[in-house]
C-alpha cells in the first residue's frame, strides 16, 4: 500500500527548534511533490508549501514563507518540515500530502504530526 508515515507528536517550548518528518513508501518517492498542510485546533486546512524531491525545489505560501523550511532526503524517501524558533501559535496538527501524478490534487496523506508549543 502506498503510504506516507509521519513522525510522532512533539511538545516543545517557545524559541526551540523542531524538524518533523514524512516518509514515503511503496512508490517512486522522487517523482511526486510533497506538500505540508497545517490544521490548527478546531480550524481548517492551510497549505504551507511543497517540495519536489527530485531536485529539492520548494515553494511556500506567503503566510509561511520565512517561518518554516521544507527539505527532503530522497535517499531515504523522507521529507521534512522545520522550524528554527517555534512560537505558541505553531501549535497545530501538521500533515504531509502527496501531489497526485499529473494533477494538482493531494491523493495520499500522512497520518499527521501534532506539535504543541507551550512554556
Amino acid at each position, binding site marked *: 500500500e502506498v503510504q506516507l508515515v509521519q513522525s510522532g507528536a512533539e511538545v516543545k517550548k517557545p524559541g526551540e527548534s523542531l524538524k518533523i518528518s514524512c516518509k514515503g513508501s511503496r512508490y517512486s518517492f522522487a517523482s511526486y511533490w510533497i506538500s505540508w498542510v497545517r490544521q490548527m485546533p478546531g480550524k481548517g*486546512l492551510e497549505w504551507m508549501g*511543497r517540495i519536489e524531491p527530485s531536485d529539492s525545489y520548494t515553494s511556500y505560501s506567503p503566510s509561511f514563507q520565512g517561518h518554516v523550511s521544507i527539505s527532503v532526503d530522497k535517499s531515504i524517501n523522507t521529507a521534512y518540515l522545520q522550524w528554527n524558533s517555534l512560537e505558541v501559535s505553531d501549535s497545530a496538527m501538521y500533515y504531509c500530502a502527496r501531489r497526485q501524478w499529473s*494533477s494538482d*490534487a*493531494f491523493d495520499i496523506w500522512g497520518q499527521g504530526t501534532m506539535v504543541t508549543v507551550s512554556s
Partner: protein
Amino acid sequence: QSALTQPASVSGSPGQSITISCTGTSSDVGTYNLVSWYQQHPGKAPKLMIYEGSKRPSGISNRFAGSKSGNTASLAISGLQAEDEADYYCCSYAGSSLYVFGSGTKVTVL
C-alpha cells in the same frame, strides 16, 4: 492569498442531496480547472474525493460530484448517508506552484 470561501455548515436528511459551494477569485478557481475536494472525519487525515473539478478517484462513490462555474466550484452529495457526516474542504491551484484551501464546511446528516 486568502482562503476560498465555503459555507460554515450544510445539513440534510438521509437520502437527500446537498451542495457545498467554494468561491474563489479569477486568480485561482476562476482561472484553473484544478479544484479538488477533501473529506475529513474527526481525528482523521483528509481524503481526496474529487480532483480537476469533477473527476473521482478510484473507489469514490458516484454520489459525489464536482462542478465549476466562474469563480465558484461546487461539490454535490446525493443520497446522503450517515457516513457522509464530516468536514469538507475545497482546494485550488493558484498559480506559481501555490495552492489555497477553502474555509471548510461541516456537513451534518439530520
